[in-house]
């Protein structure tokens, strides 16, 4: 039930204070996010339009731990005046985490429809797949393959050039 402090605002015009949106994670934590940052998420954008008196938006699919990071990501990407290179470096650091966390980010980005985060995280996983053999991929994702011998042969034949 803790509330994280709102992100430090950049120069806001004095006449209209930045609108803060409240979010509640699956485990009951509340977070505040600037509207501009929240609009990075198509899901939140739709919900904000139907907002009723600023009650925290419940996000049952996202835990507090991940939501905190997602808020951080969206806030950073809504910041004005950040050059491409430093943003890219920041993104690289952001996904420099253990595998399981990257998967959590992907699910959150998918659920909240945040194209920038989804793109970033999917590329990370694609990099993990690149260069592995099918067997290594199966081990990595804990996938059990139940091709029949005929199917396996056909699929190998279709894709033989990848193994040359």
């Amino acid at each position, binding site marked *: 039930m803790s509330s994280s402090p709102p992100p430090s605002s950049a120069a806001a015009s004095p006449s209209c204070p930045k609108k803060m949106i409240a979010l509640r994670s699956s485990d009951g934590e509340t977070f505040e996010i600037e509207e501009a940052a929240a609009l990075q998420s198509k899901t939140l954008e739709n919900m904000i339009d139907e907002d009723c008196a600023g009650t925290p938006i419940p996000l049952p699919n996202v835990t507090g731990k991940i939501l905190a990071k997602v808020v951080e990501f969206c806030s950073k990407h809504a910041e004005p005046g950040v050059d491409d290179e430093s943003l890219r470096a920041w993104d690289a650091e952001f996904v420099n985490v253990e595998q399981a966390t990257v*998967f959590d980010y992907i699910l959150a980005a998918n659920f909240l429809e945040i194209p920038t985060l989804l793109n970033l995280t*999917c590329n990370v996983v694609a990099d993990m797949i*690149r260069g592995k053999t099918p067997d290594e991929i199966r081990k990595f994702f*804990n*996938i059990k393959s139940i091709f029949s011998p005929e199917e396996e042969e056909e699929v190998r034949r279709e894709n033989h050039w990848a*193994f040359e």
Partner: protein
Amino acid sequence: MVHHHHHCKEKRPKFCINDHVDVLAEILKRLDGRSLCVAACVCRLWSALARNDSVWEHLCFRHLSPPPPSSVRPVVSALGGYRRLYMVCIRPVLSRLGRSRRAELPWRVRSREELQLSLSLFCVDYYERLGNGSGGGGSRFGDGSASASSSLMFLCKPVNV
């Protein structure tokens, strides 16, 4: 065609990528051609996703900005689909460039001109397959070995000068 394998532990449900097909599709879209073919050998679900032509469409033209007009898609589909386009027209050029210029970044269809070239070669491939239909049947991915003398598909092969 879809198989779900639950390897879930009690404490924290273990992430099973095959339970999230839309996310998996997004990931596969970002692979290169070779990795995509390797991915197709992983399991039935991955194989089905990798066979989906929209994944190959994304692969063919992801570096083209602005993206090609939507009128291109029915033409490519009629001529054999994006997977074939990649295999027959884009990949051979790519591998040839890879051999000769090692330091160079992988070639991609980046400009309108390269798009037109790929589509033209693709039309040639289709035309030649039409011709081979009554004959002994051309090879699956247009090696150009059938009707070698009249084949224009030499354009995709290294030229001996």
